[in-house]
């Protein structure tokens, strides 16, 4: 698989707080290939942002990557020093955050901040970087970029700030753009513009996107594959069609039943997932979803299920796929479980 850009294996990230260990990410594995738009969905607190921060090497005290590996184009990132990681961050891998104000500095103009990033990672001189900044603002659809480049962040609307963030993130043509809820704070009409822009730029730059979102509509709109997380673990990995047509994890199934699926269809009563998400300070033993799962069996409470491979692109961590489990309609059973070290 020569076009694998990012290969995450058994990643663990733990926060060592005074309340105890918070195992935010508990051994997850996935790949990102060139051209992918990988969606990460899951309950609040399930470890989506921590996964992203781990890849970026931005996990702060009291947390750290406590196990596993992150291979970026063959290079192990978890072993790099902060200085070495700086060569990758913002250049090869960049990230946009939910709230642009966390990454835009209010006291500098949009232009200054863009030019700084460009000059840090390229050998363009000041004038060239200025020209490139204008070009980038143009690319992300900011009108009159020559004038707007002199604006401060507060002079931009929410949608424009998110575009400026994207301009900054793509300024060095990264191989991977990680977007953590990039449109959650925006209105649907602006969201549509931003998602469209991200996918268009990805195709232009031959890069890949990891898109963290809680909106299954957004996932089905722009992603080709999806990771479903719960309680710090991967519950299911699938192509977007497999996920929506044939979900193979009770949590995914529950998510799909709890949203109105079709704006033009019959109005059916929603089927919620009962109960509440787990407390990661005291994670349930076994499958993290077991306390809320309508199918939970004895073993689910004792031991987390391995990841069962269901197709080249589809796997799920649920005991129902074990050939000895009771048959549940819609769930396939398989002979072999994939290696899950």
């Amino acid at each position, binding site marked *: 698989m020569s076009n694998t850009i990012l290969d995450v294996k058994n990643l663990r990230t733990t926060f060592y707080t005074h309340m105890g260990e918070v195992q935010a990410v508990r051994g997850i594995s996935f790949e990102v290939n060139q051209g992918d738009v990988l969606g990460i969905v899951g309950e609040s607190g399930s470890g989506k942002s921590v996964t992203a921060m781990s890849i970026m090497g931005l996990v702060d005290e009291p947390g750290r990557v406590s196990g596993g590996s992150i291979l970026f184009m063959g290079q192990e990132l978890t072993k790099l020093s902060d200085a070495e990681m700086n060569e990758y961050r913002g250049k090869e891998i960049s990230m946009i955050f939910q709230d642009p104000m966390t990454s835009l500095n209010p006291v500098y103009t949009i232009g200054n901040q863009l030019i700084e990033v460009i000059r840090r990672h390229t050998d363009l001189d000041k004038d060239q970087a200025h020209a490139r900044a204008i070009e980038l603002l143009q690319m992300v659809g900011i009108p009159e970029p020559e004038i707007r480049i002199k604006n401060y962040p507060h002079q931009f609307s929410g949608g*424009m700030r998110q575009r400026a963030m994207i301009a900054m993130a793509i300024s060095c043509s990264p191989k991977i753009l990680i977007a953590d809820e990039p449109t959650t704070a925006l209105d649907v009409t602006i969201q549509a513009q931003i998602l469209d822009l991200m996918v268009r730029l990805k195709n232009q730059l031959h890069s890949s996107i990891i898109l963290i979102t809680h909106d299954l509509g957004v996932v089905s709109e722009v992603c080709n594959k999806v990771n479903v997380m719960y309680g710090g673990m991967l519950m299911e990995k699938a192509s977007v069609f497999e996920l929506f047509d044939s979900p193979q994890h009770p949590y995914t199934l529950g998510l799909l039943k709890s949203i109105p699926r079709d*704006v033009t269809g019959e109005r059916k009563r929603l089927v919620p*997932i009962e109960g509440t998400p787990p407390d990661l300070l005291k994670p349930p033993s076994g499958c993290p979803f077991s306390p809320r799962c309508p199918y939970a069996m004895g073993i689910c409470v004792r031991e987390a299920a391995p990841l069962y491979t269901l197709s080249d692109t589809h796997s799920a961590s649920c005991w129902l796929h074990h050939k000895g489990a009771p048959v549940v309609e819609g769930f396939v059973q398989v002979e072999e479980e994939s290696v899950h070290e």
Partner: protein
Amino acid sequence: MSDEKRTPLLSVRNLTKYFHTSTPTGPGIIAAVDGIDFDIYKGETFGLVGESGCGKTTTGRTIARLYTPTDGSILFDGVDLATLSQRELRPFRKRIQMIFQDPYASLNTRMTITDIVAEGMKVHNIASGDEMQERVYQMLERVGLKREHASRYPHEFSGGQRQRIGIARSLAVDPEMIICDEPISALDVSIQAQVVNMLEDLQKEYGLTYLFIAHDLSMVRHISDRIGVMYLGKMAEIAGSDELYMNPLHPYTKSLLSSIPIANPHKKVSDTRIMLKGDIGSPINPKPGCRFAPRCRYVQERCGFETPLLREIRPDHFCACHFCETIKD
């Protein structure tokens, strides 16, 4: 629909709420809500949607008389709330309740759940002593919480549970209408359905009328009988929710609805989407003319100076666009 359902419980006319602000050129006004009309019928759910800052919350808070309207009338069961004094408003504060987006910020962290749920009952002399405590237990159980929870504090509960506490507090005073301002936006997808189903059940059980403010358009369609679409302080369109989604008339509604990503990878909306240019404008010192004109594909000269009125284009389908009868996609 039955005749009973066609009695408006609430009739809002020319509702206007301005805030004052300063601009580089001197004092200005924010026309948060700028002369809107709509009715809400007994027992129905009226959804209110629109982009951030278009005036949904201000509308809700003005109807609940947390704000004094700048102009217009708020007829609730025949009485105009707009002109009542605080004292005269007292009985209506029981009949109209409000629940908020952030279930945490809206609960007093130093009060027990009993105190929170009972607060309204005390204020409105609905119950006291053992009777009140019993009613608190009943309300908690009705919203899916336990009696044991009554002596705990808000921080011990999850977001979904806090929203249930907020609902129990509103229900305890036996209201007729509840204004729900983004009651599920802060909740996990898996928890949203729990709260929506509960609101639907309570509506049937107690004959409640809802004003449901939200920006998740598929959820709004799911829960609403009729929907109003706001744009920069104005009402752009009002229709039954199926009618609105099948036959939107206003150019803004058309692009808004076509932008909702659908959770079905076989039906990508990007193929049929009407992409909107630009950002939502500013509500400060608005000029005459259609508020949507700067972003409208069908804009004509008249839109620039004449504010379109909300007109009944088809039975029960209202739209504020000069040209909505002639626009073809």
